[in-house]
């Protein structure tokens, strides 16, 4: 029977390759049976709690969607169950096989396979090539949209394809296809008008390969999520700590600027004429986060520097100015007590490179993600009348050793350079 299914899948999958290139209607017709709405059902009420799209990649019922579509069922399997809605409106149970939380992918097994398989593209896309995306937006109907492939998002911590098309809620997890109807990516997010993002297909291949490992299959999904996040932050911050950080002047200080291509920096200054001081600020951060569950995204790195200088304010007034800025920034996404503990802080005076700091370090622990923490730092220079620097650092989801290494590097990379 599995052999028959496999043969049927190959046959049906191969059918997509025979669609007339570049015609959305033909692609839709050939792959409609390979794409379905994925639903997360609240077992208590029997109604859907979340919806997305998914597609079959193997005739034995292996279905792919986004992790964020099925995250509730992954975290609370007793409370939610998964199913897909076939073209005829039949609900078919799904089982969660494996997840790639970092790249927002999930593998599911259908009790009854879909009637077709989406073939995987073997050739890379060219910039500007037409691509199509399928999914069920807003629970309206299965649709196909057309757009353009515009390469990978530059400066992203997590590699994402830039799709100039309009993904809408409900299409998450659906397939993005080339003109031959072959899978090139997986719908994941919308960035704005005609700006959407796709997960590259190669991550799906990696996830499928990992899912075959029996030891991994036997482990808890939650442990796999925590391990993936821990490994991801370790690799990212490990790499950041290995490379030299660009240094740049800000007022009479030297600060780390854009320390990595994955970090974007923005600047600003106040010159309204009403203040008796000059202010120049810079804020940098990685734009990417990893969705873990509702109200919990992690993986962001942000830091900011604000310098203040004044010839008019006396010492007390100048420190009153710094006092107003000496505060932790609200850069932390987790807002549910069930997910994270409270922040606890240490405050002290610290010797830096040519300057002294008043520093406050706060950290909190992730409850279900063993070994991960959030860290917030605010530090203000002391000792220079009329010249001051307030620095903030906020990291979501980092291990203790990496947090301490990064903080040390951060503090040591700021210096007084009149």
């Amino acid at each position: 029977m599995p052999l028959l299914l496999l043969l049927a899948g190959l046959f049906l999958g191969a059918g997509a390759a025979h669609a007339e290139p570049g015609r959305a209607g033909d692609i839709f017709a050939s792959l409609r049976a390979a794409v379905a709405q994925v639903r997360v059902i609240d077992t208590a009420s029997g109604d859907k709690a979340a919806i997305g799209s998914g597609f079959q990649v193997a005739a034995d019922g292996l279905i792919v969607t986004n992790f964020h579509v099925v995250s509730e069922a992954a975290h609370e399997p007793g409370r939610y169950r998964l199913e897909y809605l076939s073209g005829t409106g039949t609900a078919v149970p799904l089982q969660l096989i494996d997840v790639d939380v970092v790249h927002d992918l999930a593998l599911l097994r259908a009790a009854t396979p879909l009637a077709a398989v989406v073939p995987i593209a073997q050739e890379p896309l060219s910039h500007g090539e037409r691509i199509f995306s399928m999914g069920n937006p807003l629970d309206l109907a299965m649709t196909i949209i057309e757009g353009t492939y515009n390469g990978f998002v530059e400066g992203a911590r997590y590699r994402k394809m830039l799709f100039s098309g309009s993904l809408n809620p409900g299409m998450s997890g659906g397939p993005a296809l080339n003109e031959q109807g072959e899978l090139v990516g997986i719908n994941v997010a919308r960035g704005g008008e005609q700006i959407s993002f796709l997960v590259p297909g190669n991550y799906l291949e990696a996830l499928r390969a990992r899912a075959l490992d029996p030891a991994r299959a036997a482990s808890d999904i939650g442990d796999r999520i925590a391990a993936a996040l821990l490994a991801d932050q370790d690799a990212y911050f490990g790499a950041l700590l290995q490379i030299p950080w660009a240094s740049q002047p800000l007022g009479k200080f030297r600060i780390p600027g854009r320390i990595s291509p994955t970090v974007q920096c923005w600047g600003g200054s106040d010159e309204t004429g009403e203040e008796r001081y000059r202010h120049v600020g810079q804020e940098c951060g990685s734009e990417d986060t990893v969705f873990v569950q509702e109200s919990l995204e992690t993986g962001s790195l942000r830091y900011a520097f604000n310098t203040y200088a004044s010839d008019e304010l006396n010492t007390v007034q100048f420190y009153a100015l710094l006092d107003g800025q000496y505060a932790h920034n609200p850069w932390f996404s987790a807002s549910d007590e069930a997910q994270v503990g409270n922040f606890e802080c240490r405050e002290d005076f610290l010797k830096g490179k040519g300057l002294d700091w008043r520093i406050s370090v706060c950290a909190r622990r992730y409850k279900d993600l063993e070994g991960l923490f959030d860290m917030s730092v605010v530090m203000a220079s002391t000792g220079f009348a009329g010249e001051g620097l307030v620095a903030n650092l906020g990291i979501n989801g980092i291990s203790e050793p990496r947090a301490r290494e990064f903080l040390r590097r951060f503090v040591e990379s700021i210096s007084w350079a009149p």
Partner: protein
Amino acid sequence: MGALILRLSARHGRATEYRRLGGEPLGVGRGFGNALIVPDAYLGAEQFRIVPEDDAFWLEVLDRTNPLRLNGVLRSEYRIALAAGDRIEVGHSVFTLLDENTPVPAARSLAASPWERLGDWRPAVSMFLLLLLAALTGWLDFLKTVEEPQWDQLLFGALSLCGSVMTWAMTWAALGHLMRHQAEFWAQLALAAAVALVWLAAMELSGYIAYAFVVDAGFFIEAASWVLSAVLSYLLLHGALSLATQLRHPGLAALSATLAAYGLLGLSDLSTRDDFAAQPQPATVLRAPFAKRLVGRDYASFDADVAALFAGLPSEDDDQESVESK
């Protein structure tokens, strides 16, 4: 024979009257013909008499309705010799004989005495304290002003606080006028202004203490604010009640009111306080850099503190235990 002093003590040891024993007999009882009239229903109209005779004092018992004890011993004689230190108990009254050379404690100063001695200067002193409060308020506001100073706003802020102090003093003065026919407005004003001055200065100082000694600024300032506010509220209320009313125990009344008010406030604060904060709480203490010279740490020792911070974060197990214990 040296003179003796007869001390009449009511119950609980409070002395009510002293009478010097001289060359004449001293009659003691409820009757109006006595030299010492004692309103004790358990004494006779003429209970006893103390008679000087032959360089000694003698107790002559005139009424036997209730027993009489001398130094705790029941005595039935008519005439008994007395000496300094003797204690006579009869009815509900206690009489003690004291030597005239028994030292007495120094006079206690009334809290309001220094104020009373100011005489005609009192209005001036009150107004001086009020102006000082206005000046301190304005000055502290000015020190925190980093934009171009808006003098009218600074003046308004200072005068607003002074207006509140004046209103407080006028309210208590009106109460004093009603209850004691003594308004004591200037005293009330001076008291309120002085307390406000201390509160303002102490609150400012607490920030510097937190800064200098690197204590948990948020907790320290909040705790200092509560304790200081409670103590000053008590003092202010105690003073106001003493001036405006004839309460026998104004301190007790002020203490009760303060404890009740702050107890309710504390309970209300605890009941509305959210134990979980999604963002780090603001670190708001930074002061002009004279205190920081007390300490200065290198990174290695600070890093050990950061490691301790991470290690000390409660684990999920700790949280579950906490929930279970609740």
